[in-house]
């Protein structure tokens, strides 16, 4: 009897209900990435600003001469500003190949021949990137907030700065969603993750360069919405109740973010398909 007669059996076990495939995609993607030691090193590096912040919180709470180091809205805003660099690096590292590699390996037809919608596939991929980005923005910022409350010994700081929790949350998620959607859209445009990485870096830096040139010529910062980092900075300042650094109306900045995310979703809708039709 051939060996295969002994090994194939019909399956009569349990099947998971539908709508959970995005979690399978996300968990598998996260597992694959954290296996890379170099990436774990990057994550550790991204937590150094948190360690510095935690030390500042401790010194401020323990020694009166360090009152200058007290945690304010500005410090939380600055902390998230510092994390911008890591957000950029992780977005490029993790995000560039998320869809591009699947396209290169013709994996989309495999994915979409399973009971998995395109929305679930994109959600799964988005969660992979967003999870790592939130791990270096939202999570350490919230921990800093918790540390500050814990070390202060009373809830007076929390009562006086109650808006900080939603501010940290809203800004972190905005930062992460903008980066993740933009990167996923670019990743769906090519089969080469290197090309996607260059494209993202180009879009990020070029948009800011255009704004800087316009600012140098006109002296006006009204067009900060042209720059991806500029737009985020402007919205961040408003969210943390700080004086905005540009004269752009916040609605224009929010609209710019909405347009970038909207265009990204449109691109993903067009590019993530089981079959690619070349007209």
């Amino acid at each position, binding site marked *: 009897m*051939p*060996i*295969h*007669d002994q*090994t*194939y*059996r*019909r*399956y009569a*076990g*349990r*099947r*998971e*209900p*539908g709508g959970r*495939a995005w979690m*399978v*995609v996300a968990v*598998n993607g996260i597992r*694959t990435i954290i296996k890379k030691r170099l990436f774990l090193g990057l994550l550790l590096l991204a937590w150094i600003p948190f360690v510095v912040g935690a030390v500042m919180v401790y010194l401020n709470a323990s020694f009166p001469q360090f009152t200058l180091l007290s945690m304010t809205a500005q410090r939380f805003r600055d902390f998230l500003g510092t994390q911008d660099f890591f957000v950029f690096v992780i977005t490029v590292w993790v995000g560039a*190949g998320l869809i591009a*590699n*699947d396209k*290169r*390996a*013709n*994996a989309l*037809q*495999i*994915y*979409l*021949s*399973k*009971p*998995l*919608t395109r929305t679930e596939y994109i959600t799964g991929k988005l969660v992979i990137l967003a999870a790592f980005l939130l791990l270096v923005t939202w999570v350490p910022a919230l921990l800093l907030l918790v540390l500050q409350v814990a070390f202060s010994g009373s809830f007076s700081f929390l009562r006086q700065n109650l808006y900080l929790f939603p501010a940290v949350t809203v800004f972190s998620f905005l930062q992460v969603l903008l980066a993740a959607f933009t990167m996923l859209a670019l990743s769906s445009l090519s089969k080469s993750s290197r090309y996607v990485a260059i494209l993202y870096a180009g879009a990020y830096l070029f948009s800011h360069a255009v704004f800087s040139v316009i600012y140098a010529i006109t002296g006006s910062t009204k067009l900060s919405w042209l720059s991806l980092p500029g737009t985020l900075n402007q919205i961040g300042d408003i969210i943390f109740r700080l004086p905005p650094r540009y004269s752009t109306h916040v609605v224009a900045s929010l609209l710019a973010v909405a347009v970038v995310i909207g265009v990204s979703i449109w691109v993903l809708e067009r590019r993530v*398909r*089981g*079959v690619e*039709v070349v*007209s």
Partner: protein
Amino acid sequence: MAEPVSSTVVALESVSVAYGKNAALRDVTAAFEGGATGLLGPNGAGKSTLLKSLLGFLVPTSGRMTVLGLDVAHSALEIRSRIGYMPETDGHIPGMNAVSFVAYCGQLAGLPATDAMQRAHEVLYYVGLGEARYRNVETYSTGMKQRIKLAQALVHDPDVLFLDEPTNGMDPKGRDEMLELIRDLAHEKQINLILSSHLLPDVEFTCDRVVVLDKGAVVAQGPIDALKGSRRQVFELRVKGDRHAFAATLIAAGFECHETDEDVMRVFVEAKEGARALFAMADREKVQVRHLRPSVPTLEDVFAKAIGEK
């Protein structure tokens, strides 16, 4: 050998699919019964388009499709949980070894993680990749990639398999093994399957029924034996003289006649008439018969007749 399931598993009613302005399927009406059905046709006939439409990858411009009684337009996800698709082109998840890849596909299809892993091992042994299951899929040969595509299509134990050119790029031994597997799945494991291929021997070996597509339209369908016409005899015939003219005369006289690449004609005659009718025609047309050998009807004859090949 167990009896294959006999009800209709896939049905198409007046289905048309177009790529922009180019029609790929034209008003296709076909029924795929249980068991193994071959989807035959030359390159560009619309075979892969039909399978991709059934998967919901392509939306028809008109018509209705059902798989296992479920409407493709409304129940695509439920259908996909019950079918396995082996694509024509190479496809895998980058950076994974075979067992992780197949288990991952099982999980995507709704199997719990533990069951998916167990099934992955079983299925990889079944398709002959047991020893290579911890190797990265990207290092696989073409034949191994075909086998792993079959494994990922099988891992969740589908009710229907769509196999798109499953023997492409395989060496003769690998091809025979793949065909044995397909035959075993259909006839011993009770899995209904649609085998899309342009290779007639593959379809003839594995399938009981056939749907022949040409230029996006169905040109023949039914059980292979019935299409072959078992009540007829076929003769291989070689003549001295103008064979094209003699072939035309035979066709005009009501015989079915296909010329082959060599100078041999395949002529169908009713069993009761036998070779005598051919000798009579040759005598009447003053053509010398150099070679006459009884043969058996093949799927090639069905195919040639269906797509109007001379």
